[in-house]
């Protein structure tokens, strides 16, 4: 019986509920040392000296500085501008300077605190405006990591034409991924055997690539093994390369295994967070409420090194004009350098920022021209055959209007809008309901998947047992389970007959990173192809008929292996036919497909405490075939929860480039009493190039909640909130100003 579409229980569920699942901090090796990182306390400057405190037995410590690096001191990613260890120059607070290792982790922490790094300060930059104005140039010639210009039609001419132009400016703050398992790595390293690292990660091959140049060793000498990983959300995409490098450098120098586990404060302050952003909209609308021109400026704060900022900027840019048709669009975007720790990957990857701005702005424009938010959007939804801002002609049967109908009905939007208008006049507390309509592209942008050229293998071991070999990591989202379902269905076997191998670069091919909502749609499709390859091989060998039992399959495998040798089928990514992307002009088919959604939030605002409470949340989305409903709903619910946190609670407080509230005590994420019922509904429109018709969903739920909530707050209070997060302090100021 096919398992796709069934809620097969999580494959590693038993290990997780019994505490047997092994995370990196649960590992210990004989003779193991613990590692710690000495970091900069200042934003920018030149290192003048390092002072070792008097009460520590320093000769017992392994101490690593930039001078100990055997290969290149740069984290290989996009521009290779970030060192593993600062070499004379500091570019951001929390920048790693020295590494320490000792067998006593309590003494280690004391020693870390006893090191004083003397730094001669240099001018630093702490805001996007200062970066753009080049008050000080801290990166390259102009503080700009990357810029894009997307241009369709003629925005200036369209705006000069006497049409109504509505402007708006929107901002979003940083957000910490806050996976509950902090980052950590355990390494062994020596010149003979090379380097092996076990750890918490999303992308084993990214780490391998970074360590290849750090140690200048061939790939077969660098082995990366993913342990059970306690959440990632993008936060374990690129930064783990640095931690793996650090653990390996300490292991290399000490000759002992070294484990580096970040404590929560270090993890929050030093590792990547969501890019802060600012978006300016100028929107021209005709007398019929149709979009005539959109002029969008989108700026993100990349922090001190380039890391993934160009790619985050790209996704944010492409999503900035949303699921609407507009003949004249200009999007100018910049990722700028500031003296903060680099911002990085976080679920949604730039899209939540630009979609927040657009979807809040859509309500502002609707109000300005006297249309309801619903009617204004209905008049402008993109429909099949029309081209998006980047010129992608939509050729899938998109039904934004239908999704909107369903979401508004399920949330009782119309009824509540009417009721709240009445009840808010009498009531002290104010209620509101708002929504956002949006889409999210699945997989790497443009030609990204072609460059990745992901490979998946499906192996048959002699007893007829099937092993799925990918580097795609299980980080809670359900990779193990859906791959077993996909391979099982392709092979007509139960999903528990499929083993999904723990990612280990010594064993699995490179199926690319576990990012960009690509695991199910792109890698899952390759799993399906490779599994079908195994079946075809057995059928072609005359060992298997069209229908068979599990034991027929096992017999066929045994027979094949005995006759021919090991059986392995591989599949390599092939782009769907007809996809075209022009990287120079930033025009073309940005993504193979999109998930489409409408999210509705209902809120109560307390005008005494200025707290916003989300009372109900409806999430309607079209994501292709749903492989596993419980896992898919869990993805949406968790993403919405994270987005509600971003919208209302999660406020990173900066002081001269440092996060000063790097504790769970004062950086507030939603608890079980802070969230509404999150009601999830799927529409399934099979995507021909996904496994069984599935698309990607991981990032989508991060996009819609913040604007839906802000629109609901605007309806409830009459003020127009424009900055994420909407903390009580911010709302108080807005409402008091409105009261006069």
């Amino acid at each position, binding site marked *: 019986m096919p398992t796709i579409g069934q809620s097969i229980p999580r494959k590693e569920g038993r290990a997780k*509920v019994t505490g047997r699942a092994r995370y990196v901090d649960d590992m210990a090796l004989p003779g193991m040392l613990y590692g710690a990182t000495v970091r900069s306390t200042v934003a920018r400057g030149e290192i003048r000296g390092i002072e070792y405190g008097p009460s520590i037995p320093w000769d017992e410590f392994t101490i690593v500085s930039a001078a100990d690096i055997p290969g290149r001191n740069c984290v290989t990613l996009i521009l290779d501008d970030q060192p593993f260890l600062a070499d004379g120059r500091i570019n951001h607070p929390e920048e790693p300077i020295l590494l320490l290792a000792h067998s006593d982790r309590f003494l280690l922490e004391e020693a870390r605190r006893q090191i004083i790094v003397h730094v001669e300060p240099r001018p630093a930059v702490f805001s996007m405006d200062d970066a753009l104005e080049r008050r000080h140039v801290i990166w390259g010639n102009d503080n700009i990591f990357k810029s894009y210009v997307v241009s369709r039609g003629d925005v200036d001419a369209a705006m000069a034409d006497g049409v109504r132009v509505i402007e708006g400016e929107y901002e979003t703050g940083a957000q910490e991924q806050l996976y509950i398992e902090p980052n950590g790595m355990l390494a062994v390293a020596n010149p003979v055997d090379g380097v092996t690292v076990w750890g918490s990660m999303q992308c084993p091959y990214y780490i391998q690539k970074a360590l290849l140049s750090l140690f200048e060793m061939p790939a077969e000498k660098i082995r990366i093994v993913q342990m059970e990983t306690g959440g990632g959300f993008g936060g374990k995409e690129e930064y783990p390369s640095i931690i793996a490098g650090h653990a390996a450098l300490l292991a290399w120098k000490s000759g002992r295994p070294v484990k580096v586990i970040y404590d929560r404060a270090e993890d929050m302050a030093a590792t990547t967070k969501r890019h802060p952003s600012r978006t300016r909209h100028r929107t021209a609308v005709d007398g019929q409420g149709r979009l005539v021109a959109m002029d969008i400026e989108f700026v993100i704060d990349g922090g001190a090194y380039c890391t993934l900022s160009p790619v985050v900027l790209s996704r944010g840019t492409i999503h900035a004009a949303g699921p609407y048709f507009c003949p004249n669009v200009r999007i100018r975007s910049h990722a700028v350098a500031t003296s903060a720790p680099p911002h990085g990957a976080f679920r949604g990857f730039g899209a939540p920022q630009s979609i927040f701005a657009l979807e809040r702005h859509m309500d502002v424009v609707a109000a300005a021209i006297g249309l309801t938010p619903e009617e204004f959007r209905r008049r402008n939804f993109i429909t099949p055959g029309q081209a998006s801002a980047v010129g992608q002609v939509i050729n899938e049967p998109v039904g934004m209007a239908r999704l909107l109908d369903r979401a508004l009905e399920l949330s009782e939007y119309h009824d509540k809008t009417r009721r709240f208008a009445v009840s808010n006049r009498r009531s002290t507390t104010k209620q509101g309901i708002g929504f956002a309509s949006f889409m999210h592209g699945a997989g790497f942008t443009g030609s990204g998947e072609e460059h990745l050229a992901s490979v998946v293998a499906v192996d048959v071991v002699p007893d007829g047992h099937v092993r799925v070999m990918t580097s795609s990591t299980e980080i809670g989202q359900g990779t193990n389970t859906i791959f077993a379902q996909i391979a099982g269905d392709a092979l007509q076997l139960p999903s528990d007959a499929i083993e999904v191998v723990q990612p280990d670069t010594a064993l699995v091919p490179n199926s690319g990173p576990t990012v960009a909502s690509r695991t199910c749609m792109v890698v899952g499709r390759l799993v399906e192809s490779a599994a079908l390859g195994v079946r075809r091989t057995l059928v072609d060998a005359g060992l298997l008929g069209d229908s068979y039992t599990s034991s027929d399959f096992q017999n066929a495998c045994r027979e094949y292996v005995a006759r021919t040798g090991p059986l392995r089928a591989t599949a390599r990514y092939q782009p769907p036919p007809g996809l075209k992307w022009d990287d120079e002009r930033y025009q073309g088919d940005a993504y193979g497909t999109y998930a489409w959604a409408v999210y509705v939030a209902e809120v109560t605002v307390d005008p005494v405490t200025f707290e916003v409470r989300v009372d109900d949340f409806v999430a309607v989305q079209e994501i292709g075939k749903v492989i596993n409903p419980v896992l898919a709903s869990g993805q949406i*619910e968790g993403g919405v929860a994270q987005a509600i946190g971003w919208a209302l609670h999660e406020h990173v407080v900066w002081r001269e480039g440092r996060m000063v509230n790097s504790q769970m005590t004062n950086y507030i994420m939603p608890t079980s009493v802070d969230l509404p019922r999150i009601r999830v509904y799927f529409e399934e429109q099979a995507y021909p190039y996904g496994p069984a018709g599935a698309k990607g969903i991981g990032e989508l739920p991060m996009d819609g909640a913040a604007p839906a909530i802000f629109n609901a707050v605007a309806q409830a209070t009459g003020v127009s909130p424009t900055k994420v997060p909407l903390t009580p302090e911010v709302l108080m100021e807005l409402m008091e100003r409105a009261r006069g």
Partner: protein
Amino acid sequence: MHVGELVSPKPRSGEGGPIRVGCTINGVASTLEGHPMARLLDVLRHDLRLTGTKEGCGEGECGACAILIDGQLVNSCLVPLLHAAGTSITTIEGVADGERLHAVQEAFIAYGGAQCGICTPGMVLAAINLLARNPDPAEADIRTALAGNLCRCTGYMRIFEAVVRACHPSASQT
């Protein structure tokens, strides 16, 4: 069970030597030894290798290190070894009866209550603790009882579902 090899915090000068503490861990009478202020979390994870108890924040906010001490749900990162004397401790390793899982564990698997799994041991213990006090909790009771256990993956919805299902295992499956 006597614990021979200890790696919990070494006493600093002037703070007195290690102490020995008798307690019951997952039904087994045990003697723990260490600095009186050693975190019980470290003693469990490092000395006893009971690594199912997780560290998420080290400041009593996240609940990943939750255990039951004399039937009370506590964050073991905030409990000094001294306070374990004479108590009965249950960690996640002591919840299942051999290979037979507790109803809460079964429900977490069946209804999607665990995603990345790092909060799961503490969350399962918090749910068991609730059901011991209130065998048929309303959703508001479940929310309150789990409010000290942070989960970043699920948005809690499926955890609530799992707890309800654990109370009514015979109810038809969705």
